[in-house]
């Protein structure tokens, strides 16, 4: 039965690709790089969309419509989106992006490609061993995410999954991952270990793929290979908390950030705004921390990128497109919170007065600071390394793209500051809470940090080359809208 999982993932990928196509991201003469980025985004987008449709079906129409009927609905959705894609397919060609057509050093490219290949093989091997040892993932995976999926899979008892009797399993947590796992169970007809394990691998592989392909479009192949290697190191390390929702959250955060960078770099890439909105919607549908990320994302966009020139008409329509992409998953998440989810225990018991406790804030700050300098992937202190690289290399980007990178830097800082504030008011024993979760939360922003630094610093092998031309003439060419 598990063989049906593959067609199910292919349908999700089809839905995702058709969404991107329908938004105008795949013109008729799209180049290989455009297709590669769309392909990397297709599964994350498709998984997010089908998690919503699966959830809505599970809680409403399941008594009347069997699984086979639901799958038919997904295929119809994919076909409809494909028709929309084909009808509005722009005819513009996609010229070769800046930096890709003339690599300066073939041996560097070869070395980078081999390194990424080796890291990829090591990741898949580690995932196989981790899956064999803990098929249902680590603690939170089986106690929260896969548990909720098992409840959702049951037609008779899905409401048990939101019972206050199991408040310890956080029934208020959002459902992108449980709904997707339950969809996998439905496809296979049983709560198989393969559904969450395969999903976990997809998310792990999508992080380096999306980050690297975004950087490739912005800065060329060498920075893209460095991005892929660093992200592979991060996702490798994340296997200590296998099948949690943290890496899906990291993916959607980085994906939204990447799309916003690309959209700013190339003002005629209008189709990226609704897709960035969709990714931002996936944040709140994946984890409660997604709300922090969404607020930081919108606030920094408005503050850094919009406030200096608020009245421009394209800016307003871009914002509207972002909001339209955001809306579906935002509405479903709010609906879930209102109709099904019990109150969040952290919010209900938060120690608000502790926000004014210097000792507590100092403890949180010390712990977060220690994470910043602690050895991470490859036993290296990743953050100081990235900071040093950026200082040495300097920020080399088009003037028009500078606010978007600054907004991303501020966004990451805001998210970490908000996490610090949440730790300060936690009703749980603070030291225990920090030790059991802070590193995991820190890894949610690492792929975005890597993206930001590599996008800002550019290609070190082009050190003497002039700065990339302004947005309208560089990335704009590579990403027709």
């Amino acid at each position: 039965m598990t063989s049906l999982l593959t067609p199910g993932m292919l349908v999700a990928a089809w839905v995702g690709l058709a969404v991107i196509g329908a938004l105008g991201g795949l013109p008729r003469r799209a180049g290989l790089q455009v297709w590669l980025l769309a392909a990397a985004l297709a599964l994350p987008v498709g998984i997010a969309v089908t998690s919503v449709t699966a959830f809505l079906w599970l809680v409403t129409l399941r008594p009347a419509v069997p699984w086979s009927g639901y799958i038919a609905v997904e295929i119809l959705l994919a076909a409809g989106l494909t028709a929309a894609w084909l009808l509005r397919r722009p005819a513009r060609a996609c010229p070769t992006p800046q930096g890709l057509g003339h690599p300066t050093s073939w041996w560097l490219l070869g070395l980078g490609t081999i390194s990424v290949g080796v890291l990829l093989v090591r990741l898949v091997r580690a995932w196989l061993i981790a899956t064999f040892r803990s098929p249902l993932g680590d603690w939170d995976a089986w106690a929260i995410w896969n548990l909720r999926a098992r409840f959702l899979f049951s037609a008779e008892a899905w409401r048990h999954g939101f019972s206050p009797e199991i408040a310890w399993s956080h029934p208020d947590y959002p459902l992108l991952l449980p709904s997707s796992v339950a969809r996998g169970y439905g496809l296979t007809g049983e709560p198989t270990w393969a559904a969450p394990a395969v999903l976990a691998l997809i998310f792990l592989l999508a992080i380096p793929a999306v980050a690297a392909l975004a950087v490739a479009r912005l800065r060329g192949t060498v920075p893209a290979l460095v991005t892929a290697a660093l992200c592979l190191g991060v996702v490798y390390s994340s296997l200590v908390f296998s099948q949690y929702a943290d890496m899906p959250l990291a993916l959607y955060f980085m994906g939204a950030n990447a799309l916003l960078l690309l959209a700013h770099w190339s003002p005629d890439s209008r189709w990226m705004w609704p897709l960035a909105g969709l990714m931002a919607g996936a944040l709140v549908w994946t984890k409660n921390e997604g709300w922090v990320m969404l607020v930081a994302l919108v606030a920094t966009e408005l503050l850094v990128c919009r406030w200096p020139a608020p009245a421009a008409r394209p800016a307003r329509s871009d914002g509207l497109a972002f909001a339209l992409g955001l809306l579906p998953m935002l509405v479903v998440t709010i609906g879930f919170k209102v109709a099904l989810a019990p109150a969040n225990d952290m919010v209900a018991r938060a120690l608000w007065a502790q926000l004014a406790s210097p000792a507590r804030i100092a403890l949180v700050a010390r712990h977060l600071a220690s994470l910043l300098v602690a050895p991470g992937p490859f036993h290296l202190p990743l953050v100081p390394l990235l900071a040093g690289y950026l200082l040495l290399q300097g920020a080399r980007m088009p003037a028009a793209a500078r606010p978007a990178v600054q907004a991303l830097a501020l966004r990451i800082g805001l998210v970490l500051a908000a996490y610090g504030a949440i730790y300060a008011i936690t009703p749980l024993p603070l030291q225990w809470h920090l030790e059991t979760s802070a590193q995991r939360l820190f890894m949610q922003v690492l792929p975005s940090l890597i993206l930001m630094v590599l996008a800002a610093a550019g290609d070190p092998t082009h050190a003497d080359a002039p700065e990339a031309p302004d947005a309208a003439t560089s990335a704009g060419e590579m990403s027709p809208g």
Partner: protein
Amino acid sequence: MEEPFPSSSPAALLPRPEIACAQDALPPNATVLLFSSPDGSLELDAGLHYLLQAELAPRLLITRSGGVHAFAETKWFLGLAGGTDGARWLAARHNLVPVRQCGPWSILRSAP
């Protein structure tokens, strides 16, 4: 890079035999009261009921810490009654019916 493998393995590829037995005996939509002693009280090792809940879902496992359970609260019961004899003793005391013994776990239900 260090090997990031999990240190524990709470779930196997296939359910443990006693869990497969309990899954068979308990209806999927059952709400099940958990106990850990032949007298019906609950005293579990840390984390055990989390794992049991994960393994027995979609059945809802409820716990009442401290003292003896109110056996009228639900229809289904799962616990360590000390084997079939203990289960029979507990059933007679609380007007329950022993349903099945799954390894160390006794399954009982309220008398019709």
